[in-house]
């Protein structure tokens, strides 16, 4: 096992570091860039194998693609025809993930539904594919499905049950981060890698801490580039060009949990043919649009229209329900130069690239794959780094009393005469004041969007119309050096982004009320100053 012994700190791009610049130098056995499911999965695996690990993430937990997905823990059934290898991986990993993080998985089950409009011959190919890939399938009577899910279309030709589930990725990421920290690992959030150079048989990374503007260096014999859509940017820092296709997917959350079971169309996979229940909402997903930059998250009206139109094939009354919010996530898929397939049809199996042949031993990139198979991807990578066996499949993550958000917890009460319920900050999602205080204490972040990721604050029908102010008040009361408005205007702008694509009808009413409350009732304006 190579160890890090920094001998000199001169970066190879020729720029000497100014002599008076104070730079903290860290070292660990493994540096992981990106704290998505893949990166944290790698870190967790590595810590179990006795390595010291540092994870560096430019945003907050879940701010990247792992936090922007539709919540599906795949049974694999979706890919049995188009990508059997991926399907088999998903089928195996589905069961493993349920064992690892039971509190993050909602065992909803899934249906594959062949409607009267879907090609009947696909079903047979699909069934054969399921068998081949080891995906468990059970055929059901469509009438039974309609009883279970009253909103599902009555135009069902055939129906099948599979072991899809809903995965709360924030819970997963938090659990992984806790696991890493509990055993010799550190997870540095809001830290961005700005340079990556070979160094002493490994790599040296230049890192800046975005919140307090501190510069660091970290030397490690192994560096794993798990930066999701930013893998290309990171690789380029080390002088490597990665042939990538970036695909942006848009998803829409409906205001209510219209189905208790994951609904899939049994047809060749295409845009908008999944509906996933996640907590109090359900998510329609997804489109697939090629983009040039990992930060390109624009959502266009045709995408919304497509998702709702496609969703109606599964839930005919969908148009009567209110779409709550839209967001997008970008995936990077490996695309060697001669491949012209549209991004949707690129193989989803993950790709591991060793950059040693390019003069960068110890530098590995991992991309592609699905969140469902994160553990497998991590295993493949860490196998390159360590000879010890992988134990992640049999080691549950630290079981956690969920400190933060629990679905409907504020509603679990003793009978009315004895009630003394907690103070609610976010009424829509039932987030209490003590949950907010605990989350602020743990994260120390004055960014209300971070609080949102932890607690689902502002994710309900009012999209922060009321709770933003209350949370901002808590921030101002608890943390030093916060913006003058407690972060309200920044969060308001962020919420506005996701409701704009749905700003018609009820959505527009809600948006206008949100805006009137912040600006007219409370007097919000864009404030940049921080109170010191």
């Amino acid at each position, binding site marked *: 096992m190579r160890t890090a012994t920094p001998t000199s700190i001169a970066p190879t791009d020729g720029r000497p570091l100014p002599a008076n610049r104070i730079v903290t130098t860290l070292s660990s056995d493994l540096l992981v860039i990106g704290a998505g499911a893949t990166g944290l999965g790698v870190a967790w695996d590595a810590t179990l194998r006795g390595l010291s690990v540092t994870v560096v993430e430019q945003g907050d937990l879940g701010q990247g693609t792992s936090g922007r997905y539709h919540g599906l823990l795949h049974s694999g059934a979706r890919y049995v025809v188009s990508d059997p290898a991926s399907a088999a991986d998903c089928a195996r990993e589905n069961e493993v993930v349920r064992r690892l993080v*039971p*509190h993050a*998985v*909602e*065992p*909803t*089950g899934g249906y594959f539904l062949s409607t009267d409009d879907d090609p009947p011959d696909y079903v047979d190919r699909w069934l054969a594919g399921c068998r081949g890939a080891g995906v468990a399938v*059970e055929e059901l009577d469509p009438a039974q499905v309609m*009883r*279970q899910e*009253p*909103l599902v279309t009555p135009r069902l030709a055939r129906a099948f*049950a599979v*072991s899809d589930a809903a995965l709360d990725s924030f819970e997963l990421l938090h659990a992984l981060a806790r696991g890493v920290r509990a055993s010799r690992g550190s997870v540095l959030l809001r830290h961005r890698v700005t340079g990556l150079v070979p160094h002493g048989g490994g790599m040296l990374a230049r890192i800046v801490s975005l919140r307090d503007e501190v510069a660091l260096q970290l030397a490690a014999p192994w560096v794993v580039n798990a930066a999701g859509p930013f893998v290309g940017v990171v690789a380029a820092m080390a002088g490597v060009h990665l042939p990538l296709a970036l695909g942006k997917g848009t998803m829409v959350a*409906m*205001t*209510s*949990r*219209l189905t*208790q*079971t994951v609904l899939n169309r049994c047809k060749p996979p295409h845009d908008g043919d999944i509906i996933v229940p996640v907590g*109090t*909402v359900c998510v329609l997903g997804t489109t697939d649009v090629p983009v040039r930059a990992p930060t390109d998250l624009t959502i266009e009206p045709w995408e919304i229209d497509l998702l709702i139109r496609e969703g109606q094939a599964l839930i005919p*009354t969908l148009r*009567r*329900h*209110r779409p709550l919010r839209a967001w997008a996530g970008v995936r990077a898929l490996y695309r060697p130069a001669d491949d012209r397939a549209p991004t949707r049809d690129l193989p989803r199996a993950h790709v591991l690239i060793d950059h040693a042949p390019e003069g960068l031993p110890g530098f590995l990139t991992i991309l592609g794959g699905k969140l469902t198979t994160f553990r497998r991807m991590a295993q493949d990578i860490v196998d390159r780094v360590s000879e010890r066996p992988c134990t992640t499949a049999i080691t549950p993550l630290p079981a956690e009393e*969920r400190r933060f958000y*629990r*679905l*409907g*917890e504020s*509603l679990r*009460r003793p*009978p*009315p*005469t004895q*009630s003394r*319920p907690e103070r609610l900050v976010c*009424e*829509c999602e*039932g987030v209490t004041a003590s949950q907010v205080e605990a989350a602020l204490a743990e994260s120390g972040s004055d960014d209300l969007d971070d609080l949102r990721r932890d607690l689902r604050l502002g994710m*309900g*029908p*009012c999209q922060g*119309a*009321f709770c933003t102010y209350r949370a901002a008040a808590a921030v101002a009361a608890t943390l030093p050096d916060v913006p003058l408005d407690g972060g309200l205007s920044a969060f308001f702008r962020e919420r506005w982004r996701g409701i704009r694509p749905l700003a018609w009808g*009820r959505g527009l*009413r*809600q948006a206008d*009320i949100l805006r009137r409350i912040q600006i007219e009732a409370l007097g919000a304006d864009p404030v940049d100053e921080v109170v010191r």
Partner: protein
Amino acid sequence: MKASPVGSGPMSIDVLAPLSAGASGLAFFESDLCVKCNICTAACPVAGVTELFPGPKAVGPQAARFRLPTRPEPDPRVAWCSGCGVCSRVCPHDVPVAEMNVIAKSELPSRGVRALRDSILARPPEVARWLRPIRLLGRPAFRSPLLRAAAQRVVGIARRAPFPVVAPTPLRRLRRDRIRSRPPAQPLPARHVAYFHGCSTNDYEPWLGRTAIEILERFGVEVSLPPQRCCGLPLLSNADFAAARRRARSNLESLQPWAERGIPIVGTSTSCTLALKHEYRAVLGLSGSAIDQVAHATQDFFEYMEHLLAADGPHPAFGPVPLRLLYHAPCQLRSHRIGTPAVRVLRRIPGLQLELSLAECCGVAGTYGLKREFYDVAVRVGADLMRQARASGVDGILTDSETCRWWTETHAGLSSRHPLEVLAMSLGLPDRRPRSGEGT
């Protein structure tokens, strides 16, 4: 897939349990409509006086998002909802908050002796039938503090809640000349109404029914008493939807022939008429052309009077009534969404000075205030009205709902009448109200 609860974490659900009828009856459309503005919470008379009820939005469309098959009613605090309907009426976004909450309440588990009590309070005509033979004994019993204290302790009927006296002869016996099982054959007399008197008028205030009929006859309207049962609203408010539906179907069968012929179905009890117009469809889920016809044909007494007065005359003259009275629009009347027709009509009476109540609800909300656990809240809800009544120095209170009358008479200490009694006075009709303490 085999149905089995997986894991014991907070998100474990029995995935194959079907949604209950109530929960699926409002399949999320309605809770999606809510934009969380809290206007309903601001108007809710109960939330305004007790911290045990977080408001209609919280237990209604907000809690509905947490509904799961194993948890059709997520928030048990909905038990505090009085069913007054103010929330639905003030909502600018079409959310049927009150209806959602009535349905949610019906899904709460019933609790032992309270269930028995609710069953009794939900059946006024049956109670009248049992009590009538022993009413001379019954009345002093009802007033006995000892017996009322026992009733409060044992079954949970608030000991200070006012109850009406059972009349010795029901309306339908007094005016059996007007009973008709179906509408008269063609051609119809010029003006004809089917009178839905309801059980409160029939069994407890038959004089009111007599007066109503006499007023209509004075206007040249022929009045029939169609077959009818209790409208079922007390049953619906007390979570017995099955029994309420039976009454509803029976009433629909009796009333549809009249509605079909374009004959108005007129009621003097605003809760009965609201049940016919609205609750049958919106809460009990009845649908079809029969109920649509009946709902459309149903009119509150003064709603019908307005039509009469708007039609070509001549009309009987309104004599002066030199009284100063406080008119309180019952919450069920406001839920008709027709404003206050009684005020519009009574304004024509010379010499009558009408003050208008500023309160949303007198407090009793049907049977709510009669229950021990809600009595204090009901009193607080109505406190403003009682204060206004006493401070205004009026001669009495007018209100179209019987439960409001009985409640306000006790709590305001002023006589409380149906506005049609003032109309009768103005028209010079005899006063049919019995002397205090006696039936007709």
